[in-house]
């Protein structure tokens, strides 16, 4: 009965039937998802919907990276975790939710966080990378590792009521993060959700769109957001897509003679380059309201 050589079993056909009957998607695209793998860096506000929708869609192997534990103040936006998971490692909690949604896929947890020491080796194991991190040094690190190993990168970010989405390191001319921002912003210019706040549903929108882009990249269906930046203003209800530069031949990461390679990346000093350590949303100061 597998005359189309898609390699899906009967349970998979039943489970994904609503995507398979879709003419513009179909069984071959679903089979690519089921054979594909995605690394999600960060199991927070962006990673929550990204991981859930990729698990539900049937991506064969998901890797989830984090290093923090769930806190109550995360849950207003990090819907992959439940109250009962407070104190549990985020990657473990997220993996558990993905498996409960879809036991037929493989979910791998990486609890040590994403570091210069493990970045290249982690990225190498997956087809597509989702940047669901929350700080500038990690964003440069993820982009560099994707350049070094040659993986497309779905990048999302959110703060306040603003969100941004793009795909880096894709195709012949897609830029990387450093092509756009060769010089890191000063540490004082980098607002974090823990300080500036974020409306919970904003990373929800962006993270879900990150899952969409990963599905498009894996399945080969649709036009990925390469060389385009989607900018959303959730308060105004404005969605705006702008055209980005091509990759730069002189980029230290993805140019014709890159200084940052798989070999040199582990010794690159991201804290010095960005002037800040990889931060996280853990251990907030208690909020004082008079």
């Amino acid at each position, binding site marked *: 009965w597998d005359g189309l050589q898609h390699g899906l079993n009967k349970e998979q056909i039943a489970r994904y039937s609503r995507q398979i009957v879709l003419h513009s998607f179909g069984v071959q695209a679903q089979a690519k998802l089921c054979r594909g793998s995605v690394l999600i860096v*960060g199991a*927070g*506000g*962006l*990673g929550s919907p990204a991981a859930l929708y990729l698990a539900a869609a049937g991506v064969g192997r998901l890797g989830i990276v984090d290093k923090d534990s769930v806190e109550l103040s995360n849950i207003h936006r990090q819907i992959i975790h439940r109250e009962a998971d407070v104190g549990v490692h985020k990657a473990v909690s997220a993996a558990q939710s993905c498996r409960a949604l879809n036991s037929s896929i493989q979910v791998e947890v990486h609890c040590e966080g994403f570091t210069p020491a493990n970045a290249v080796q982690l990225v190498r194991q997956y087809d597509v990378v989702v940047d*669901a*991190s*929350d*700080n*500038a040094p990690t*964003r440069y690190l993820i982009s560099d590792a994707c350049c070094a190993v040659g993986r497309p990168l779905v990048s*999302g*970010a*959110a*703060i*306040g009521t*603003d*969100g*941004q989405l793009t795909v880096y390191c894709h195709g012949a001319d897609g830029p990387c993060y450093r092509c*756009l*921002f*060769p*010089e*890191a*912003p*000063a540490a*004082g*210019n*980098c*607002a*974090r*959700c823990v300080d*500036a706040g*974020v409306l919970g549903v904003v*990373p929800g929108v962006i*993270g879900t769109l990150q899952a969409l882009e990963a599905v498009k990249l894996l399945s080969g269906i649709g036009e990925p957001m390469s060389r385009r*930046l989607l*900018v959303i*203003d959730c308060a*105004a209800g404005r969605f*705006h*897509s*702008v*055209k*980005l*530069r091509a990759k730069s031949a002189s980029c230290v990461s993805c140019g014709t003679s890159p200084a940052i390679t798989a070999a040199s990346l582990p010794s690159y000093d991201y804290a010095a380059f960005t002037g800040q350590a990889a931060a996280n949303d853990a251990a907030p100061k208690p909020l004082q309201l008079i």
Partner: protein
Amino acid sequence: MVKVRLEFSGGLDLLFGNQKAVEADIPQQSGHQLTVAEAMAWARDNLLTDRPELFMKGSSVRPGVLVLLNDTDWELCGELDALVADGDRVTFISTLHGG
């Protein structure tokens, strides 16, 4: 005078009195077309309400800010020297890191 729409996104609106867009009439030197560099300096001198170092560094934009001319990355239009005409939109977007 050149009529330009200046847009601020990704938190830069906070530096411009919480305005996300300003319809500006920017004076130009006679015989010269307005450049993005001049529009940016005009915005800094006339609209900025707070901490100029969060908007510019030297005579260009600070690291981490993307500049667009009519929704296109300024790198594709000539960066600081790109010409700005009546009705054009110049957008400044701060890259976000949160999640």
